[in-house]
């Protein structure tokens, strides 16, 4: 099954003889865009390497869509530059940028069938009808919708519509693929499935891709690199595990994945004291004078949890996440932490149970605390 699709893909999209990816390098350079007094893009710079999939993650309203639309030329910039394959395209109109884009929803042309939608870009490029239909048919096959070729958009489910939109974007062999929350209008199951499929196709085609989402799980699972945005700025960019394990600042630490923030104190020897225990810091975290008050951010898995009648923690809630159990635990001093433990060992622990909670180092992130 996969074999045939890969074969198709190699014939569908011409690649160098060496088999190198055909993707191109794309850059946003120091981009600025204001809406009224809101800076949707605040000196944003972002480079996407050929064939790479970069996911832009951030809270709603942080400027992700604006960044993507600026790349497409759908949004004018107040400052900065867009470069595709090292050529400044800032003033090139959208229709000449040779991009592909998938919107959140409702972007299929209502008066055209699925196959005509997919063939639209080719029609504009004056590809003859027969060749057009052939290629559009191949792309529909790539997204698994050959049987629906003759349907109109309103006769397709949301997931199917997004597949057609993807096929349509890819049909013109765009230089860059842009996806703006393509999955957020779909229900959970279809979402996960289509996400994996987008990634599969992207890898097969080798196209440089910018994927915008506010769903961190989606971003973490699909991206080669993950950019985290806030207030029109790029807070951090790196591989998903880098960003997850080594957040560059407190915002990234708390936005990607779950964290608990605990009050602590820096102590000599490159350690902090938190919940009465000392844990070691990574060298780059060891920047606090001994005795200074800090916030220590810890992942749920950075705790050792035991049922303990004498423990000082009280379980507030528990939620079952398959292999692990997630617990919300109240600790003295109005501190609430999220911890996880293997589901198998969580047997007798429930809401109201007393537990002991110990931090395991090193922490995810440490910041200074002025309020102490």
């Amino acid at each position, binding site marked *: 099954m996969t074999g045939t699709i890969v074969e198709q893909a190699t014939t569908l999209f011409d690649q160098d003889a060496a088999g190198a990816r055909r993707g191109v390098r794309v850059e946003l350079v120091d981009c600025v865009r204001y*809406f009224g007094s809101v800076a949707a893009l605040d000196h944003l710079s972002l480079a996407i390497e050929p064939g790479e999939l970069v996911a832009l993650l951030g809270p709603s309203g942080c400027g992700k869509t604006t960044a993507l639309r600026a790349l497409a030329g759908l949004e*004018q910039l107040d400052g900065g530059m867009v470069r595709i394959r090292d050529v400044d395209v800032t003033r090139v109109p*959208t229709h000449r940028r040779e991009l592909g884009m998938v919107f*959140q929803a*409702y972007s299929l042309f*209502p008066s055209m069938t699925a196959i005509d939608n997919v063939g639209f870009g080719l029609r504009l490029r004056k590809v003859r009808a027969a060749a057009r239909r052939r290629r559009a048919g191949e792309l529909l096959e790539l997204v698994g919708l050959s049987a629906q070729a003759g349907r109109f958009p309103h006769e397709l489910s949301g997931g199917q519509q997004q597949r057609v939109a993807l096929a349509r974007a890819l049909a013109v062999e765009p230089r860059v693929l842009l996806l*703006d929350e393509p999955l957020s209008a779909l229900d959970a199951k279809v979402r996960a499935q289509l996400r994996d499929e987008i990634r599969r196709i992207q890898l097969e085609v080798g196209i440089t891709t910018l994927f915008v989402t506010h769903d961190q799980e989606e971003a973490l699972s699909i991206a080669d690199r993950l950019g985290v945005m806030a207030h029109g700025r790029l807070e951090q960019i790196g591989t998903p595990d880098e960003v997850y394990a080594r957040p560059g600042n407190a915002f990234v630490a708390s936005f990607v994945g779950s964290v608990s923030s605990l009050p602590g104190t820096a102590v000599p020897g490159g350690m902090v004291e938190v919940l009465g225990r000392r844990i070691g810091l990574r060298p780059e975290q060891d920047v606090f004078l001994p005795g200074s008050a800090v916030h220590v951010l810890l992942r749920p898995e950075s705790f050792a949890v035991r049922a303990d009648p004498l423990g000082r923690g009280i379980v507030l809630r528990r939620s079952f996440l398959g292999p692990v159990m997630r617990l919300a635990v109240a600790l003295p001093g109005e501190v609430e932490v999220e911890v996880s433990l293997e589901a198998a060992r969580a047997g007798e622990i429930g809401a109201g149970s007393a537990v002991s909670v110990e931090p395991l180092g090193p922490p995810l992130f440490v910041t200074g605390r002025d309020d102490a």
Partner: protein
Amino acid sequence: MAALTIRRRAGASGAGPARRATAAGFRFGLPLRGAVLALSALYFLVPLLASGRFALEGARGTWTLSAVRALAHDGALWSSLLLSVEIALGAAAITLALLSPTSVWVNLRLPRLRRVLEGLTLVPLVVPVVVVVLGLYGAFPPAFVTSPALLALEYVVLAMPYSYRVIDGAVQSLDLHTLTDAGRTLGGGWVQTFFRVLLPQLRTSLMSAAFITIAYCLGEFAMASLLGFTTFPVQLFQIGTEQIDEATAVSVFALLLVFLLLATLSLLGGKRRVARGSIVAGGDGTAAEPPRPARAGRS
């Protein structure tokens, strides 16, 4: 849309002069839009203004109210107006009595026939009025054809394409089943439920429907004139053949009056719709979209 409307560029700090905003979809940019709107305004306003000037024009370009004054004392005009108002009120009453129960019934008991009925109410649009008049002479006894009641009865039909749409639209937006169930658990029969529960909910729309019917009747000329009734427009026509400035004066005032009333109605209606939050658009304009593109009326 709302998102687009507030798109404005801040004084681009050091980025040179603000560039033109990307044209947003199937819309016209400012120059084209301005030109089209200005031309349209010219086409639609000039005749109105000209009528006003014409009506108030005295000898050698002076202004005078003589045409208006002459009209105020024109007994025939007033009695024709009275006749028109009587006919209009009659037609409005029949319209409400006939169409509102029909619409409720269809939506409640025969939802599959809704489109068929809607289609039927549009038929009067395609039968020329002159043809109907011909048929009235042929089909009904002369005594009936010479009674103003017939005019009222016919106006119900002629205004139906407009009035039924208003009523049916409102009825469709009600949660009929819940309402009728509620009404009947409270012990009312069909009739009581209709009057006590449904009608109050429909009040505004019924008023609009009545108003549309009345406006239609007050302006209708062809049928009234061909059936030989001296209604307001017919009298106006008569004046027009002798005193065009007087006729113009009256027609301008009539038009303005209708316009003001309709504008008020629609502004009121529009406000309410806005308040219910139809213009909640996210930053990227996709947040609060209706699930499907709204379709225009199929008139």
